């Protein structure tokens, strides 16, 4: 499932909804991204996440389907927020549930790596020097690329 929203999310509630009633699930991996207060030695008072409504959902659905195709998942969830967020706030949740832990770990890692390079979001950081659009990082592309090379195990 995909959710693109301004509001915050409750990790416990989302986890309960994801796994509720499905007793084939043996493990869940969760990744939660938070707003930091420092970047490239600049102090950040807040950031605003802009996105491309329509394309965002489409790309996240595609990434989620790809994870479902590659790993034996019982359930998966991506929540990505947009709008103005302050340090410590939650930005993104990725949750993957599988009968066994390896698939859950790998699929979660894949999803966060891929969404960082494919989902159309942009971060505008508020610093003492004014607003600053965050540049894409080569390290994020490298992290995403490794999933092109590695074939996951089926269990």
């Amino acid at each position, binding site marked *: 499932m995909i959710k693109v929203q301004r509001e915050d999310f409750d990790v416990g509630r989302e986890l309960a909804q994801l796994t509720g009633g499905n007793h084939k699930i043996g493990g869940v991996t969760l990744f939660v*991204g938070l707003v930091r207060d420092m970047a490239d030695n600049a102090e950040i008072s807040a950031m605003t*996440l*802009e*996105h*491309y409504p*329509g*394309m965002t959902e*489409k*790309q996240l659905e595609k990434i989620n389907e790809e994870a479902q195709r590659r790993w034996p998942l019982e359930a998966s969830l991506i929540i*990505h927020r947009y709008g103005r967020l302050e340090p410590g706030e939650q*930005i*993104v949740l990725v949750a993957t549930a599988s009968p066994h832990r390896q698939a859950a770990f790998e699929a979660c890692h894949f999803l*966060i790596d891929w*969404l*960082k*390079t*494919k*989902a*159309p*979001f*942009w*971060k*505008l950081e508020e610093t003492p020097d004014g607003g600053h*659009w*965050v*540049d*894409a*990082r080569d390290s*994020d592309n490298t992290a995403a690329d490794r999933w092109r090379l590695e074939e996951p195990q089926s269990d």
Partner: protein
Amino acid sequence: MKMLYFAWLKTKTGVSEESVTPPAEVTKVSELLAWQQARGPAFADAFADLTALRVAVNQEYAGPDDQVAADDEIAFFPPVTGG
């Protein structure tokens, strides 16, 4: 043709969304980018470094040789930084 601009592409062009009619000979993404560069100083600046730009046609990532048509939705934006 519906055009959308995000992040600093929006700041530099001063446009978030517009409807435009490029000349009929503009049929590919690369030709559309060249046309954008010639639309005045703000667009020339925003589209100066094409390596820093991503293009989506109808909400799918597109390359320079992909086709564009009159009823397409074209979006211009920098490399994404979500997550």
